[in-house]
């Protein structure tokens, strides 16, 4: 059962529409949609005989006139239509200027002049109106009295239609007589009673009274045949005598109204009144029991609400952990590319277009748009918190990585530096060797052969150059070196000498 204020969502369009409305809707499709909205609120829903011929021409109950409802307490001025000065029926808001009116009122005013009644801004009926959801929900919560005669049912406005259309015994329904097009209270609308709109002479005063209004006539106007109550000396319409004795007569013997709680007092009503006023000792118990019963009702209602809330909470909790999980996975897979992780969260930020968000609100999971928005805010906040954590994590990861990488680099640089130093030492050593060998050559008296120069510069060893260039003299002068020379000629890698002729190159 959809709330009565949103009939366009669940209830088929109005069964019938007055000719004027039909004419307009034929001319303008969008007016017809507004009119249908109004229609379905005012026409009511066909509950009973759907296939019945009469139901096609007439709604099954007299439509509720939302502008004539009486409210339990005074309604806030902000919920009043500035045109009819009653709480909005189906509120619609103008898009350019944000003024709200009942759709009926605005439609009427718009037919006269296509401008906003408040600031006279020109308004286009196709484009410039939208439903006023928030106001709608506020109106739904107003406590309103049932409009049926003789019914004192009070309920939130959104539930009124259900009571009125399905349960209320006083709801005017079409007269069971097909030839009669008047309305009659549901409890009187039985085929055996027939049409109660026919006039009949009162059996006491012979005045012509409509059958349906007979009871009222007896109560209010009939002066025809009153009799004195034998017990209490009061004038009572004959017709009412029975009920007078049962319900009102002070002389009838009745039991105390707390009898079901243990009071056994039975006395004429006037004594009972006094007794109850005194008050009856069982009153306290009775009240207590009654209160308890009420409390129990409230508790069970609250419990039901709590369980739904808990369910909702669990759902959102699950959602949240799922989202966290997803995010974590994303975060870990996208560590190298933070840009990839961010767009994944963006759809959640888009409140209005998120189909899930819209659905959860429309399904009535939330009591009001404010609650819904608050919940959304909370959700966003937790998301933000998660994001912040993720960013922190990423940040840590990054700096770790950076540190690791730079540390390695630093090490490498240090290594390279030391290598450079070593090479530098080698070079100095080599230069020394070269200088020394040149000095030797000069001392021997020969000129440095180009081969010798080459050999020394080619990075071999001082020993080679000595062996090849100054071959004979060297051999003669130094036997062990000769041995080395032979070694070199057989292409063995240069050996480090420790004969003290040159500085030993530093060990790498």
């Amino acid at each position, binding site marked *: 059962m959809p709330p009565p204020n949103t009939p366009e969502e669940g209830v088929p369009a109005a069964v019938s529409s007055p000719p004027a409305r039909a004419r307009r809707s034929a001319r303008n499709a969008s007016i017809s949609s507004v009119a249908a909205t109004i229609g379905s609120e005012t026409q009511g829903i066909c509950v009973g005989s759907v296939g019945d011929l009469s139901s096609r021409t007439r709604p099954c109950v007299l439509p509720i006139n939302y*502008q*004539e409802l009486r409210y339990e307490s005074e309604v806030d001025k902000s919920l009043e239509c*500035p*045109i*009819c*000065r*009653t709480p909005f029926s189906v509120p619609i808001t103008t898009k350019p200027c944000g003024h709200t009116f009942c759709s009926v*009122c605005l439609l*009427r*005013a718009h*037919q*006269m*002049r296509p401008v906003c*009644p*408040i600031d*006279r801004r020109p308004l286009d009926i196709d484009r410039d109106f939208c439903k006023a959801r928030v106001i709608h929900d506020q109106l739904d919560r107003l406590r309103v009295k049932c409009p049926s005669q003789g019914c004192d049912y009070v309920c939130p406005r959104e539930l009124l239609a259900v009571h009125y259309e399905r349960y209320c015994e006083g709801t005017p329904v079409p007269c069971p007589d097909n030839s009669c097009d008047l309305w009659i209270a549901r409890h009187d609308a039985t085929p055996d009673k027939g049409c109660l709109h026919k006039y009949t002479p009162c059996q006491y005063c012979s005045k012509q009274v409509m059958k349906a209004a007979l009871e009222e006539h007896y109560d209010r106007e009939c002066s025809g045949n009153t009799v004195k109550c034998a017990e209490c000396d009061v004038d009572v319409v004959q017709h009412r005598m029975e009920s007078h004795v049962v319900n009102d007569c002070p002389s009838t013997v009745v039991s105390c109204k707390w009898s079901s709680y243990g009071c056994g007092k039975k006395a004429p009503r006037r004594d009972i009144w006094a007794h109850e006023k005194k008050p009856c000792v069982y009153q306290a118990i009775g009240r207590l029991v009654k209160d308890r019963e009420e409390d129990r009702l409230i508790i069970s209602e609250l419990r039901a609400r709590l369980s739904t809330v808990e369910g909702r909470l669990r759902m959102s909790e699950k959602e949240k952990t799922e989202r966290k999980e997803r995010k974590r996975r994303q975060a870990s897979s996208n560590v190298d590319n933070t840009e990839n992780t961010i767009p994944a969260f963006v759809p959640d930020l888009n409140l209005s277009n998120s189909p899930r968000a819209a659905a959860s609100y429309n399904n009535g999971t939330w009591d009001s748009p404010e609650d819904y928005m608050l919940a959304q805010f909370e959700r966003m906040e937790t998301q933000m918190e998660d994001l912040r954590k993720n960013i922190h994590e990423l940040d840590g990861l990054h700096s770790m990585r950076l540190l690791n990488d730079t540390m390695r680099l630093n090490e490498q640089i240090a290594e390279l530096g030391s290598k450079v130093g070593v090479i530098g030492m080698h070079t100095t050593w080599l230069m020394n060797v070269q200088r020394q060998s040149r000095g030797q050559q000069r001392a021997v008296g020969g000129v440095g052969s180009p081969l010798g120069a080459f050999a020394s510069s080619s990075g071999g060893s001082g020993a080679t150059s000595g062996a090849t260039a100054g071959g004979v003299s060297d051999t003669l002068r130094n036997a062990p070196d000769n041995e080395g020379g032979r070694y070199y000629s057989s292409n063995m890698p240069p050996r480090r000498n420790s004969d003290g002729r040159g500085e030993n190159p530093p060990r790498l």
Partner: protein
Amino acid sequence: MAPGAQFAAKRLGKELTKISKGLPAGIVLVQGDNFEEWLLDIQVLDSNPLYMGQTYRLKFKFGSSYPIEPPEVVFVKLPDRPIPIHPHIYSNGIICLDLLGQQGWSPVQNVESVCMSLQSMLTGNTKNERPPGDEEFVRGNRLRPKDIDFYYHDNNV
């Protein structure tokens, strides 16, 4: 009762409830026991010498389309209730005010707001004169006020 008339009656009923809780200074409801015609007295509160110390009687006539359509509002002449002198008020009580015309009316207006508009229209006036062609108009006019096609020469009064 036509559905429109019911709408008007309902709205007027609402206005009556509100009026019973009090009206702004200088406005008094004299008669409002039906939903077709109301009488109100208005006074100008400041010391404008043209209107000081005077009380004027207004007659509101409501159609079945009220408040979608404007009410018909005229000043009524009585021994102790003169017609205020104003360049937009004819000596027969007909008022030439944009607010009360088909174009200037808005359904969010009500009896109280109309009275207040008239009060301020008088308060702001300094010209001791009738509209041009007043005599001729008063002699010749047989139309109802709302059917007269006024030319609203000056909207700031």
